[in-house]
């Protein structure tokens, strides 16, 4: 451990001595610079390490000049100061490295001096415990940053610097005034000494004004809302290396100083400041960033927003009346927020400098070429947006958990802001990851960004560890290890087949691990996910070559996170894995070449759902029970919380009002992933919905209304999505709507909340996996062979792909629910359940929906396989072997289940019983005869009957044996002519034009348009509203003054 003052002295001496070294040449200067940075960094690291390991427990006090604290100045290095200093020096070093590699303009030694003194100033600022000394260090920091900010080649940096100088001067004026008045008030400048003289009761008098002035000076530096125009201009105009260190390090120093001062001053309204300014800043900047065209300013808005959030968190931490574990949570949240923002944002600024392009639109396709750059950028963006398992996620989670329950609106608003953040960050990601002809070269060194990201990853790991440590949530270690194995898969990205085998291996191992699991709800879904995942992942190999290295790791990650959902024992761990699933699936969907917009919509909807769930969970927490288990009975808000939690599941199931993401996301997602998305992932919504209905709704006052509403949603979903499906021309989009429609039936089953209903829902869940997996897998194979997913371009493929056709036909028959295959039993159970409850209208809609579904069923079969085969597909082969195997396996399954429904119903019975229902509402007679009180269903008989009838027909046919003559494809009775091309006689486009005319009012995308309208409305509004930042220095200064008057007005209850 090094005496902290030595750090300052050595740095100063080095900075001074550069004046001589510059005569010897640049190398000497650089040498001195790096040696100093190295020394400083290792020194603060040793202190921080001491704190971390517990070797140092109390803050290190350094008396300067040998005088005891109130007399002389003293430094006090506490835990957070030390940590922050490490961060600042690290990022400072990275920024310097970046800048040196980029090439500084002529007086490089001077720039390095400024850099050193900037780091020194901020370190001193953190370490000092004297109000005036603080002012001096603030000035050192500010002046160094004035100079550095102005240093960009772009002249607009001068403008930014000037604005900063003026506002910074005003800010430090208030700090100085406050410090001196504090001296006058308390008789010393030492923070602790003054703190000991302040009692909250003294805030009636002038102390309030003094404290406000001092803290206000710091608040300006914290870039809070009405007075942060200058900061945004700096982010936009200044050298990104400088901005990286400002945003990543220095501002955090100001933040720590602010919080510490507020604590020392015992300022009573710190929470109000957080709520008024912090929250406003957060929300306003997250929305203002939406239409931002300049990438650096966009990141600037984000930085400002994060600072607002930090101030809010500080408000809660200091003045929120938190105690015990809550306080620890909030502290951890703050620490994680700071670390996250420091490392991610500085990386992002480095990357903006590497690309040297300011306009966001010109970032199109930036990430296409460079894998490393893509990883760095994605990691940072994901962490900034709060995606698990990165540190930003844990920060947000801790934050939400720690907020007292009476501030629920804060939770809602913060999560709203988080959604807004995701919207613009992933708009950016959408642009950067899309295809483009643009060619980019990386100008500069990528090392700093990589180092930052490495640290970020390490911190993410640590923070996740801390989360589970503090919340005492148990997660399956096996699961985490297997998730870790996804990284190994990533490393083996060069060999697709290896990745594939490894993925299958992991899934099989998981299945082996959980082979003895109890068949309750969780166990049922666990097996469902793993078995389904195994089958569907098996089929991905042929199509996976189209997608990036990260396809398999993400695939395994998402499947395993679903396992995590199924294994979750508390709502909060369910939420964690839920988010993991959403994000990893987003990243996979985004790999589809046209899926950029679609995946964005998917992500935004998922985020809305996820955060709604989080706020619902927040409502369930009570007192010390921060992480409610499923049986939690904190019932005060439970209707609202149930609805909020339901939102997440409904969005994932894509039911009626929130279905808008489904068509495009299903349609454009990678072909290998769509079966999983439809077959398994959307079923996690089913899982969650069952959990909610079983565990939460019974406690609510309005459960019957909610349930009927859900059933209605489900029925309308089933009907309208089936209708929409008929009018799609893209095969995957047809199946997408079909998927959603089928999930609607499942939702009805859940909403029935009866044993028969659950049986129907669970049966249909599995059944849907079978047939929709089959259909999507077959389609993937077809697209793989033909290269198109556009229905009118297909046709006649039965001649080329008979196996696929057979499987597909089975799938369609099951889908349509026609006996004797497995689809019918589910329908029968569902209708019986509905009859039992006498929900006639739901029954009517559901049955009608299944009739409407025939339209798209026929359309699929006809346009893909039947009709005329195009010339260009004459040489098309049967689908690749893995896909064919999966098709046949699934087709076999649907037949087997059709004859013997007990294959599924045996499992679902156990689940229904474990959910607390005494029986499934039906009885078996044999493995295939199901009896309910409305009648019975004999699958075996039906199969025999169908086969028997078929045999009769066949026998009859051969009785009247006629000579069958096979004719050519074009040899049709076409008005006496033989058409010359298949295209001219293939009827494949807009099959239901007549139906469209009949139902046109119903199939206009009303919901989609209204979502679009809302989004565009908000976007237009914020686009206009961000003109608040006029760019006019006077106005910026004016807002500072206005804010100060406002603060005085609201906080000062007068000595007059």
């Amino acid at each position: 451990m090094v005496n902290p003052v030595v750090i300052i002295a050595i740095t100063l001496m080095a900075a001074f001595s550069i004046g001589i070294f510059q005569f010897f040449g640049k190398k000497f200067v650089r040498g001195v610079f790096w040696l100093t940075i190295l020394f400083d960094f290792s020194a603060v690291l040793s202190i921080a390490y001491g704190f971390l390991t517990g070797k140092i427990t109390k803050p290190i006090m350094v008396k300067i000049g040998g005088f005891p604290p109130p007399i002389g100045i003293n430094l006090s290095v506490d835990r957070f100061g030390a940590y922050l200093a490490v961060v600042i020096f690290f990022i400072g070093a990275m920024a310097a490295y970046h800048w040196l590699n980029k090439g500084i303009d002529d007086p490089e030694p001077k720039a390095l001096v400024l850099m050193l003194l900037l780091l020194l100033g901020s370190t001193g600022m953190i370490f000092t415990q004297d109000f005036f000394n603080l002012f001096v260090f603030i000035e050192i920091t500010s002046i160094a940053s004035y100079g550095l900010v102005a240093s960009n080649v772009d002249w607009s940096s001068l403008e930014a610097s000037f604005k900063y100088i003026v506002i910074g001067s005003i800010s430090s004026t208030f700090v100085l005034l406050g410090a001196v008045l504090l001296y006058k008030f308390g008789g010393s400048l030492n923070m602790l000494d003054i703190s000991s003289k302040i009692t909250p009761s003294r805030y009636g008098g002038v102390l309030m004004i003094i404290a406000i002035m001092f803290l206000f000076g710091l608040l300006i530096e914290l870039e809070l809302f009405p007075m942060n125009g200058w900061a945004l201009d700096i982010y936009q105009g200044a050298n990104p290396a400088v901005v990286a260190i400002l945003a990543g390090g220095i501002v955090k120093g100001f933040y720590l100083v602010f919080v510490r001062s507020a604590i020392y001053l015992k300022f009573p309204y710190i929470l109000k400041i957080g709520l008024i300014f912090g929250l406003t800043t957060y929300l306003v900047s997250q929305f203002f960033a939406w239409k931002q065209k300049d990438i650096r300013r966009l990141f600037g808005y984000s930085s400002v927003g994060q600072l607002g959030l930090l101030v809010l968190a500080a408000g809660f931490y200091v003045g929120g009346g938190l105690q015990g574990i809550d306080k620890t949570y909030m502290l951890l949240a703050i620490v994680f927020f700071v670390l996250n923002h420091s490392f991610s944002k500085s990386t992002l600024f480095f990357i903006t400098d590497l690309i040297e392009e300011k306009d966001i639109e010109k970032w199109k396709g930036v990430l296409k070429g460079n894998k490393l750059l893509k990883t760095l950028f994605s990691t940072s963006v994901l962490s900034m947006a709060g995606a698990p398992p990165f540190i930003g996620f844990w920060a947000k989670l801790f934050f939400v958990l720690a907020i007292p329950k009476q501030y629920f609106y804060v939770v809602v608003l913060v999560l709203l802001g988080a959604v807004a953040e995701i919207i613009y960050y992933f708009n950016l990601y959408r642009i950067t990851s899309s295809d483009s002809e643009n060619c980019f070269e990386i100008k500069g060194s990528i090392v700093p960004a990589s180092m930052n990201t490495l640290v970020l990853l390490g911190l993410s790991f640590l923070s996740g560890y801390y989360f589970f440590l503090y919340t005492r949530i148990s997660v399956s270690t096996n699961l985490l290890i297997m998730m870790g194995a996804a990284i190994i898969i990533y490393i083996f990205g060069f060999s697709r087949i290896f990745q594939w085998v490894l993925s299958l291996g992991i899934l099989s191992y998981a299945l082996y691990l959980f082979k003895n699991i109890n068949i309750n709800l969780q166990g049922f879904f666990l097996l469902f996910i793993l078995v389904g995942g195994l089958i569907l992942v098996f089929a991905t190999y042929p199509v996976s070559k189209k997608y990036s290295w990260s396809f398999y790791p993400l695939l395994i990650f998402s499947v395993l996170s679903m396992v995590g959902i199924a294994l979750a024992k508390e709502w909060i761990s369910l939420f964690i894995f839920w988010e993991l699933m959403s994000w990893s699936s987003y990243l996979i969907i985004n790999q589809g070449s046209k899926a950029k917009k679609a995946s964005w919509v998917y992500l935004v909807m998922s985020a809305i759902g996820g955060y709604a769930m989080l706020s619902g969970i927040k409502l369930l927490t009570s007192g010390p029970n921060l992480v409610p288990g499923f049986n939690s009975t904190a019932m005060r808000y439970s209707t609202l919380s149930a609805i909020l939690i339901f939102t997440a599941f409904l969005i994932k199931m894509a039911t009626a009002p929130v279905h808008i993401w489904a068509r495009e996301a299903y349609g454009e997602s990678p072909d290998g992933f769509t079966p999983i998305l439809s077959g398994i992932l959307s079923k996690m919504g089913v899982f969650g919905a069952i959990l909610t209905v079983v565990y939460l709704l019974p406690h609510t006052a309005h459960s019957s209304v909610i349930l009927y509403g859900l059933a209605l949603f489900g029925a309308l979903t089933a009907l309208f999505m089936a209708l929409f499906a008929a009018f799609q021309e893209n095969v995957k989009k047809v199946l997408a709507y079909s998927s959603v429609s089928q999930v609607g039936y499942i939702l009805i089953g859940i909403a029935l909340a009866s044993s028969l209903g659950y049986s129907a829902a669970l049966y249909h869940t599995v059944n849907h996996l079978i047939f929709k997996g089959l259909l999507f897998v077959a389609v993937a194979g077809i697209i793989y062979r033909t290269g198109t997913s556009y229905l009118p371009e297909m046709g006649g493929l039965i001649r080329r792909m008979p196996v696929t056709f057979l499987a597909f036909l089975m799938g369609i028959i099951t889908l349509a629910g026609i006996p004797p295959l497995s689809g019918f039993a589910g329908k029968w159970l569902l209708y019986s359940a509905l009859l039992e409850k006498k929900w006639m209208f739901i029954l009517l809609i559901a049955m009608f929906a299944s009739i409407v579904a025939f339209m798209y069923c026929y359309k699929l079969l006809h346009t893909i396989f039947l009709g005329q085969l195009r010339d260009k597909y004459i040489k098309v082969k049967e689908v690749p072997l893995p896909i064919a195997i999966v098709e046949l396996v699934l087709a076999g399954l649907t037949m087997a289940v059709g004859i013997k429904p007990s294959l599924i119903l045996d499992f679902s019975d156990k689940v229904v019983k474990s959910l607390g229902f005494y029986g499934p509402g039906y009885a078996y007679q044999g493995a295939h005869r199901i009896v309910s009180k409305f009648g019975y269903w004999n699958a075996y008989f039906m199969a025999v009957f169908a086969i028997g009838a078929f045999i009769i027909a066949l026998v009859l046919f051969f009785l009247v044996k006629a000579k069958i003559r096979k004719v050519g494809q074009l040899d049709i009775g076409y008005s006496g002519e033989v058409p010359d091309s298949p295209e001219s006689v293939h009827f494949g486009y807009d099959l239901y034009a007549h139906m469209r005319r009949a139902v046109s009012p119903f199939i206009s995308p009303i919901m989609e348009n209204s979502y679009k309208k809302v989004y565009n409305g908000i976007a237009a509004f914020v686009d206009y509203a961000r003109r608040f930042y006029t760019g006019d220095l006077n106005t910026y200064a004016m807002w500072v003054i206005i804010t100060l008057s406002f603060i005085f007005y609201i906080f000062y209850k007068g000595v007059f």
Partner: protein
Amino acid sequence: MWYKILYGLLVVVGGLAYGLLLGGISRKITARLHGRRGPTVFQNYIDLIKLIRKKTAISHGTMFFLAPMFRLLGGIGVLLLVPIVTKSAILSNFSFGGDLIVVLYFMVFGCLGMALGAADSGHPHSALAPTRGLAQMAGYELPFLISVIGLAIAHNTVSLGTLVSAQQGGILHWNLFQYPFLSIAGFIAMLGMYMAYPFSVVMAPQEIAVGPPTEYSSTFLSFMFTGRSLFGVGKYVLFMDLFLGGATNLLEAFVKTFAIFLFVVFITGVFPRYRTEQAVKFFWTYPVVIGLIDFIRIFIK
């Protein structure tokens, strides 16, 4: 059990004969209504024999080949699943406890098969027809489902047998009189189901030769013909069971189905044809509103 299969065969043969006859009568009546002489009532038998006796049959592919089987299977299935004479060991056929829902779905089986075969022929017209049929089905199924679900809820069963026995004990117990609005909706839907005249755009004899079976000939066509006849009879029986109290003996069954048949034929003779979307719109308005009157009554009860 095995004797049932035997009787099943008998029912199929009988049903076929009856169905062909009804078809012939229908053609005759329609012709008379139009002021033509029309073919003999046995014309359909002649046609069938003629078709069967043709030597060669043209095939376009596997599905084309299998479609008539499906069609026939659908016809046989429907006919055998609805109880012609309730409580009769033989003529209640293979009806069972949950047969109502099964029949509803099985009715589609044959249509789908035929549609697939038609599509496999590669003829655009034969592909067009099923789309019309499916669209129209979406139309008439709504009122039909209203009446079926209404009855099922009202009688608390999904078994045709139970439905029939609930209507015993006098003509006023028939659903036709118990739930007149449901019945009206159901019968209007039935017109659509038969693709009879106002709703005949699917077969559309003038424009598209003979609708879905455009490319079919000889043996294949004979199968479709057979299937269609069986199907028709099955549906008459279904409606009889649903609304007219079923039948306790074969004669009653004949009378009632013939009555329904006549109703269809006379309506057919009078009305001009709707376009598809007109038909759909029609089905979704008047019969639905009418049906909902009783439906809501049951719902409230």
